């Protein structure tokens, strides 16, 4: 019954089935909405955040999501600036994913702050010295950019495209895309870095604090690199998931392979730097404040295993897979690599935000462990479900995968 809206030459599941699918996604989504209302209505005592853990799941998730969303800017960068043409077949989808990631980032901040109605003070009374200000500005700017990148896709919907104006507008946008992408890329490079700065300028927290290059601590660059390394993997992951649900191939494997390979190299580079950074921190910075590196891993659940898992299992292993052509070609292995890589980034962001606060600084500080409560989980995951809904709709009605027709002739 919605066939008129569905792109020409492609097949979609029956409308009823589609409704059921959306309906199912609605349920967890609505629970998330309730969590939001609870936190806004009854204040943040409804979470497990406390004075020792002013940052928790929300901030960690924010850092993680933005890193994953890095796929959008990086693919755009490769497509429009480095001009790797194959990538035009996946850049649309990368954009859709990016839009949702950044929407989530902003949405989560809106519940994390204590006085959401005053949130705009961050722009109105901005403190240029604060990493958070930098982040806020870049994120919101880049979010607009992503929307602009997403808009032509919407306009290319069959029905909308009938009207002259949208058509031409979409057309012009497409022409402007490289420029827009360039802006986006610039913004992203910046805020991905600033996010790295967020924990690392805290010189009261020796676990996260880093010296650096000019005003930027080393993590500034680590974050950029890691975002570029995992972004594409996340894009691949979501693409493959979509394919599974769509029960058809949507992107040619060579396209995916390019992304995977690049991702592998970057991940490798990142790991090298990360290891250097960790070691130099361990031998110079940590001791300089009177605490052997070991004392930072003294309290469970934040023992040495954290570092090993993050760098080893979730770093080196996927890196090897992505770099070896044969392993990469093996689809299950590729998926595994992508999964590990994304998990690794998430873990890294959690460590940089939450473990930073978990480590007692004053010698007589008690260690307290923190785990998010239902409200934090529900409100964070809400964005996963919402993204699923948006992606489903976009996939159904918008020409996102240029190769779909070719790969699945009717």
């Amino acid at each position, binding site marked *: 019954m919605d066939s008129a809206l569905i792109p020409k030459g492609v097949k979609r599941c029956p409308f009823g089935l589609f409704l059921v699918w959306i309906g199912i996604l609605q349920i967890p989504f609505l629970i998330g909405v309730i969590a939001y209302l609870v936190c806004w209505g009854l204040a943040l005592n409804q979470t497990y955040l406390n004075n020792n853990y002013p940052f928790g799941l929300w901030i960690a998730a924010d850092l993680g999501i933005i890193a994953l969303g890095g796929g959008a800017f990086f693919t755009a960068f490769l497509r429009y600036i480095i001009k790797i043409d194959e990538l035009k077949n996946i850049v649309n989808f990368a954009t859709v994913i990016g839009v949702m990631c950044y929407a989530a980032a902003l949405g989560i901040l809106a519940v994390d702050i204590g*006085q959401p*109605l*005053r949130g705009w003070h961050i722009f*109105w009374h901005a403190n240029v010295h604060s990493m958070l200000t930098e982040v806020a500005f870049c994120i919101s700017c880049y979010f607009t950019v992503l929307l602009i990148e997403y808009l032509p896709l919407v306009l290319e919907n069959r029905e909308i495209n009938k009207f002259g104006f949208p058509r031409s507008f979409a057309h012009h946008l497409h022409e402007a895309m490289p420029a827009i992408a360039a802006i986006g890329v610039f913004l992203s490079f910046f805020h991905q870095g600033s996010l790295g700065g967020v924990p690392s300028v805290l010189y009261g927290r020796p676990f996260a604090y880093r010296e650096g290059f000019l005003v930027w601590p080393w993590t500034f660059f680590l974050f950029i690199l890691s975002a570029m390394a995992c972004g594409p993997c996340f894009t691949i992951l979501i693409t493959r998931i979509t394919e599974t649900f769509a029960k058809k191939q949507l992107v040619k494997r060579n396209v995916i392979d390019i992304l995977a390979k690049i991702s592998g190299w970057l991940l490798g580079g990142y790991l090298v730097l990360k290891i250097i950074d960790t070691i130099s921190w361990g031998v110079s910075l940590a001791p300089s404040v009177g605490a052997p590196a070991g004392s930072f891993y003294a309290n469970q659940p934040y023992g040495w295993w954290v570092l090993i898992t993050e760098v080893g299992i979730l770093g080196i292993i996927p890196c090897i897979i992505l770099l070896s052509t044969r392993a990469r070609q093996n689809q299950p292995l590729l998926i595994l690599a992508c999964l590990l890589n994304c998990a690794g980034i998430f873990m890294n962001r959690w460590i940089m935000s939450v473990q930073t606060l978990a480590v007692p600084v004053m010698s007589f500080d008690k260690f307290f462990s923190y785990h998010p409560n239902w409200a934090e989980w529900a409100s964070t995951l809400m964005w996963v479900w919402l993204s699923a809904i948006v992606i489903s709709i976009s996939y159904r009605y918008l020409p996102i995968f240029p190769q779909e027709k070719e790969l699945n002739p009717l």
Partner: protein
Amino acid sequence: MKLDRRGFIQFSLGAGAGITLSPLPWKLTDDFSIWTQNWPWTPVPRTGEVTHVNTVSKHCGSGITLRKVGDRATKIEGRKGYPVNDGGISIQTAADLQLLYGPWRVPGPLRRVGKRGSGHWENISWEKAIGDVVQKLSDLRRKGKSHTVACILGSDRGTVPQLFSRFLKAYGSPNFIRTASCDDTYELAMSLMQGAAASVAYDLEHAKYILSFGCGLIEGWGSTVRVIKAHSIWRSGNLKERATLVQIEPRLSNTAAKADQWYPINPGTEGALALGLAHVIIKKSLYHTDFVENHTFGFEDWTDDSGRRHIGFKRLVLKKYSPNAVSRITGLSAKKIVRLATAFAKADRPIAVWGRGKGTTSGSLYECMAVHALNALVGNINKIGGVSTLPEVATETWPKVDQDHIARTGSGMPRIDGAGGSRYPFTRYLPERWPQIVNGHKACLIEALLVHEADPYYTTLDSAAVARAFDRIPFVVSFSTLMDETAYHADLILPNPHYLERWEDAPTPTGLQVPILGLVRPVVSPQFDTRHAGDVILTIAKRLGGVVGDAFPWEDYETVLKETIGDKWDTLEEAGYIEEADYTPPVWENAFATASGKFEFYITAFEQAGMKINKDLQCLPHYEPAQPEGNPATYPLILIPVELTRLANGAVGNPPFCMKTLEETELKKNDLFIEVNPKTAAKYRLSEGQDTMLETPRGKARVLVHLFEGIMPGVIAIPKGLGHTAYDDYLAGKGVNTNSLMGVTEDPISGLSATWGIRAKLTRV
């Protein structure tokens, strides 16, 4: 059609432009911003003229300055230059405004409706309320049952307590009871050993070596601020000048933590240690020869007129309390005992202080005497940095009460607590004993009970027995300002104003060596329909008429106060206090009003009072092991109640601010923590925060375990001051009342409670 669409667009473009060029969006943004910054439900305190007024705190006798904004009291601060505290303030006093303005105040006269303790009250007029009391009391008096009326007060010093005791005298009852404190024992010890009719005073400020037998000096012994200030003096100057504080206690209390040396000994063996130290001092003849030889009696063996030989303190101590013997009792090595004794005796200005915790329990007389004997040995009695008797600022005496027949017979009757009788001739009050006696008789011993500035229902040992005793008292009247447990279980509440709303005199705070009279004055307008207890007593007496009425010639309490202070009034009102700074205690020659006219190691008073003394031992400071209640087999551990600085455990409940300052290892939600040594814990497989059942012969309670290295293995400590049932849920329902776990162990010679702990067991739940 199309035109309309375009037209609309053009119109809205214009509108948009117009609005943008109008203040509307910009101003709205700004107003919205302001709106989000001042929520209507966030209180905005009223401003006004700031004034400062001085008065005296009833908690610790400190001078305080109230900061007022308009008619509102906004802050209590320590009064600069006040002799007791000079600017400092105690934690409870600092939070007092919460009690003044708090919902736990009794709003006006209340009469019980429904079951007692059900918390159902009706507001009645003062007329009616006082009418009820007068009715009841006159009936009893007519029936010749005047002696069945009792009063329980927190103190017997100052005009208001005096009015109560005078009332009983004129009315015809001997039953004026003061709630328990170390004064009970000290007054006894001082009267027996020095023939003085007052409690003790310590010149802590000038002492150089302070040997504390379980005194919670820092926790709030005597007048909190004053002692802490003294401690600061000990800690001032260069390290050599500094005084030495030695704490003897099985637990690392605040005082122990601040002490230079902490000697944990088996609980309840303080007396033995004191005698052990005496042994060393005598043996090494380090004692003050002049004082001991010329101004004491019963040090050496002596023969009485009948030619009977009596052993002296010296022989007794040398015979029975050798370091090794004492070491076996106390668990402290003989070497340490010798070292400690030597250090103490050789120190310049040593002083031995006694009175467990904050001094809210009476304790063993012989133990007190043993410690006091140490002071005698080093001859610091009435000396600078030594011990003297609590001095008071002299005030006018009241006209004698001329009693009628009923009054005479009534007040001639034996006291319901058995104090002052043939068995305990020297004891004045037995506040922990009356519940058993009341429960022990079929007949109703107390027909009417008046309670003022005390919370016996909460503070008396063995809560279960106390509750039963209360049930057997048909008429209970509380004068409480706050809805405390006693008020909650009373039949009638005649609320006294908060001390910030009323006049009263504040006599020398406990343990202070200088006579000080403070003036408590109304600095806040009355917040509720309250009436001064003094005035209420006057009215009751007048309404009863006859001799009772005649005994109270003053028309109101203010007159009583003014006339009592007499010609000093103007000075007092002007300065807010009178301090006789140049007071010095009498010299040894005329310091002792005992039969021998000397300081008595050997108490002669006992025989004179016709007490059956079969052994000299009974007249000398000695150690009588006071075994804690309970069978060691079933109750392997020893539970000691401890007092915390930040937790008020007296008649007044802990204010919310102070509750907030409790450590997370003292209270968690509504459960308190007991302190357990990790070794003990390991033995019973208990871990930090463990949910545990604490059981004693007197009761059981659910508690949490806190592992603390500062407590002696085998001993567990539980904080006093929790487990309130009245007040408000800022305080009520949190933790347990230690008194519900404790029983009364009577001191054989004084009849006072010598309870310092009880046997207990822990089982995981």
